[in-house]
């Protein structure tokens, strides 16, 4: 406990970095996965390649990716952008299938009704299809959030700050309290974000009786 009170600033900075790296990655993964998943839904012939292809991104080992990315992006090895990009790729890998499943779950009757009512393409996508696909997308997004917050720690190995830094630093300096703090905060953050998503889901999807 002593270590915690004496190093609050370090801890808060690590926490801040962790949030600053993982939130943009989660949002970016969602924004990329929606069009990809929608394409997989609209083009059944290509849905296999799109879903499997994006899913394979998850098989890329994280450390080599983090070393390779700076070469591609031109950003410095310790630039947080590399972690954000890597986490976004992993997020896309996990989310495309959920998005496709979400759009596929909309009944043909509902689609017909929307057409008959006179929805135009764009409006129908935004106000009918996307909301109806949202519960399944949210389920995927919760997995992505947990996974992103866990994976975000990897950057610490290369010196990119996050809660993982408490972990690596604690190992190097043999401070057990620091290691435990890093683990507890990572788990806590994942739990907090998950809770927020559940609450957000209940607010945005009141027609859903259980978004458990």
């Amino acid at each position, binding site marked *: 406990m002593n270590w915690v009170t004496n190093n609050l600033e370090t801890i808060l900075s690590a926490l801040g970095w962790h949030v600053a790296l993982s939130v943009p990655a989660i949002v970016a993964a969602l924004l990329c996965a929606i069009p990809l998943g929608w394409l997989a839904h609209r083009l059944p012939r290509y849905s296999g390649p799109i879903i499997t292809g994006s899913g394979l991104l998850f098989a890329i080992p994280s450390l080599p990716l983090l070393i390779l990315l700076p070469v591609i992006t031109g950003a410095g090895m310790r630039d947080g952008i590399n972690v954000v990009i890597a986490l976004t790729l992993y997020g896309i890998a996990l989310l495309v299938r959920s998005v496709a499943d979400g759009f596929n779950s909309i009944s043909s*009757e*509902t689609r*017909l*009704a*929307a057409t*008959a*009512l*006179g929805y135009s393409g764009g409006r129908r996508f935004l106000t009918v299809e996307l909301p*109806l696909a949202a519960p399944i997308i949210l389920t995927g997004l919760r997995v992505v959030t947990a996974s992103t917050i866990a994976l975000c720690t990897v950057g610490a190995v290369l010196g990119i700050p996050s809660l993982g830094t408490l972990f690596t630093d604690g190992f190097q300096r043999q401070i057990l309290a620091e290691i435990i703090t890093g683990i507890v905060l990572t788990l806590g953050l994942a739990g907090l974000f998950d809770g927020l998503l559940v609450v957000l889901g209940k607010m945005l999807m009141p*027609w859903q009786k259980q978004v458990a």
Partner: protein
Amino acid sequence: MISFESVTKTYPGPRRSAADVVAVHDTSFNVDTGTITVLAGSSGCGKTTLLRMVNRMVAPTSGRVQINGDDIAHMNPVQLRRKIGYVMQHAGLLPHKTVAENIAVVPRLNGATRAEAKRSVDRMLEMVELSADMADRYPAELSGGQAQRVGVARALADEPRILLMDEPFGAVDPLVRTGLQQQLIDIQHELGTTMLFVTHDMSEALRLGHEIILLAKQGRIMQQDSPTRLVEQPANAFVENFLGLNAAEKALRTRTTADGRTMVVDAHGRPAGFLEQA
């Protein structure tokens, strides 16, 4: 007036090698403005296909559909649909919108303000006799009959001149169905909407239609007439059959009950009602 002029619709066969499916073949008829015209016929005879040609959800392979002399093929389909009400079998309510939001869809798409749409919603709920506290329910919280009422209310909310209905009462229980049918007759009387109503149930057709078009496979018209004339003068055996008028099947007999009343029974001896003195 809605006029179908030699419309044909073929769908590609289920497999590449299979022959094309002819859903409707060279069908022509008119629907008079301000009346209920019923398209009746067995499942698969092309009723839905014909109905959906009116709001361009189905494009005829050949032939054309005109509304008041204008070929709808030249109209913007989205705009056209916003001017034509459509009710489907299971109501087709949007599951993520409340009753009020569902009813408000077309007025809002047509540019009504929230306040204007709210007025339409209140008026429509009253017209289909749903209490105002239904407004905030979601479709999943409605009975089949209530959902259909909302479906009708939604279709009529922006006062379309044309209403298309595809077996709208097919999935509700008989008692509720009779109520919904009567309500529809009243609404049509009040608004003067031109209605094209699809059913496979002949008693429903006879009850609702000013004009009935009885279809055989591929939308072939077997008879187009008023309900009375259809029953009095069936054009052929197909019509007689569909009306269930053939032979002994339809014969009714009377029987005196224990309390001295005269009961009418059908060919199988099942009670059909009591005979009353005129």
